[in-house]
């Protein structure tokens, strides 16, 4: 599905990784590992086309993601570090707003079911500013659940989540995989996934080195 070909990423004159290639098929879970500052977030942003790599390309179904953006974005959902939650909108309106940008029509029942699943059952009409940061992250989980995307790109999805939240995220990933979907994620928290999982390790590269210690 997703194919990464000899990517290179430079940030502030520092080479984060180069000649990085891997691919991701259906029902595959891939963890991007590496210490802080090794380029995990940059890599995920390149994967979803938000950031341009210095070299290399990202292919979706064999085509560059830049030339078939519409197709790619319809089948991919990304959540990053930032909460994307509006303080002045209620939980329900926040989920709707996120889904609306994807032009998805989701029934009221489905939305309620998703909110119940992420533990926000009685919070539909609570404004975003009254929520804890963990609850805001849970809204994003409901969004991911409802987005109906085949590929999930999750950057530190466990941030601010409690033990139940982590378990929820794990079960969501397993369910998604069982339904044939794929996941790329990064995390510094332990995620115990009861399934086959691949990992890509980004390491620090010496400033002058052309080739990194990227392993797959």
């Amino acid at each position, binding site marked *: 599905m997703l194919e990464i070909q000899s990517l290179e990423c430079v940030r502030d004159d520092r080479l984060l990784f180069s000649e990085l290639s891997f691919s991701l098929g259906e029902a595959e879970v891939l963890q991007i590992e590496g210490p802080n500052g090794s380029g995990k977030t940059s890599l995920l942003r390149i994967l979803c086309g938000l950031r341009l790599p210095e070299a290399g390309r990202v292919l979706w179904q064999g085509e560059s993601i830049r030339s078939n*953006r519409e197709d790619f974005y319809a089948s991919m*959902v990304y959540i990053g570090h930032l909460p994307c939650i509006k303080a002045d909108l209620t939980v329900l309106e926040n989920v709707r707003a*996120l889904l609306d940008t994807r032009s998805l029509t989701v029934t009221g029942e489905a939305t309620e079911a998703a909110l119940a699943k992420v533990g926000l059952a009685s919070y539909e009409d609570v404004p975003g500013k009254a929520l804890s940061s963990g609850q805001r992250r849970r809204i994003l989980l409901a969004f991911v659940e409802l987005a109906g995307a085949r590929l999930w790109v999750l950057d530190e999805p466990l941030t601010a989540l409690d033990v139940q939240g982590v378990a929820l995220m794990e079960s969501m990933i397993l369910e998604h995989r069982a339904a044939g979907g794929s996941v790329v994620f990064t995390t510094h928290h332990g995620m115990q996934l009861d399934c086959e999982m691949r990992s890509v390790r980004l390491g620090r590269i010496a400033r002058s080195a052309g080739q990194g210690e990227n392993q797959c």
Partner: protein
Amino acid sequence: MLKAYYYLLMRDLRLAFRNRHELANPLIFFVLVVTLFPLAVTPTTEALRAMAPGVIWVSALLAVLLSLDRLFKEDFDDGSLDQLMLSPNPLVILVLAKVTAHWFLTGLPLVIIAPLLGMFMALPDEAGAVLIYSLLLGTPVLSLIGAIGVSLTVAVNRGGVLLSLIVLPLYIPILIFGANAVDVAMDGLPVRGQLLFLAAVLVLALSLAPLATAVALRITASR
């Protein structure tokens, strides 16, 4: 696609109405500046009339300029902008929705209050009508051009000065033709030329500015 436009527009309007004091800012600024001028300069009818078109147009332009920051800032800070860029809908359409919302919240209130300020400044009725037309055609252009500037500077801390430097030179033709139309109307001369020029610029900005804004936003996001 149209649905995405409509929903984003509605979201922005709803957000603005939940945060009313911010909504009133450009309007209050506009009214204050225009009412302060007669106090500082001679309040004779002739003097007021002579400076009315310029004062009203400059105040409107600055009011829009001051409100530009909010166009993308909040979405940028909370990550919603990334989600807009990852939408399967063309970014141009979403940009257009955001600019439309911005105009509804800043430009349109200015147009509505302008006749009252025209009366303050002793503008004759015909000139007052032309003032409305010129603002109606000119303020959307200010929002559209402003969006390009904001999308380039939104990632810059305190990018306000930079934004003014980018945007002001592009605003000047609108200011000249807008104020001139009102000026000419006061002398009882035809203003068709000026208004047609403003309309032409509006069409041009409407077709090109969202494209430029979308590209600039993608560049900003690839930071």
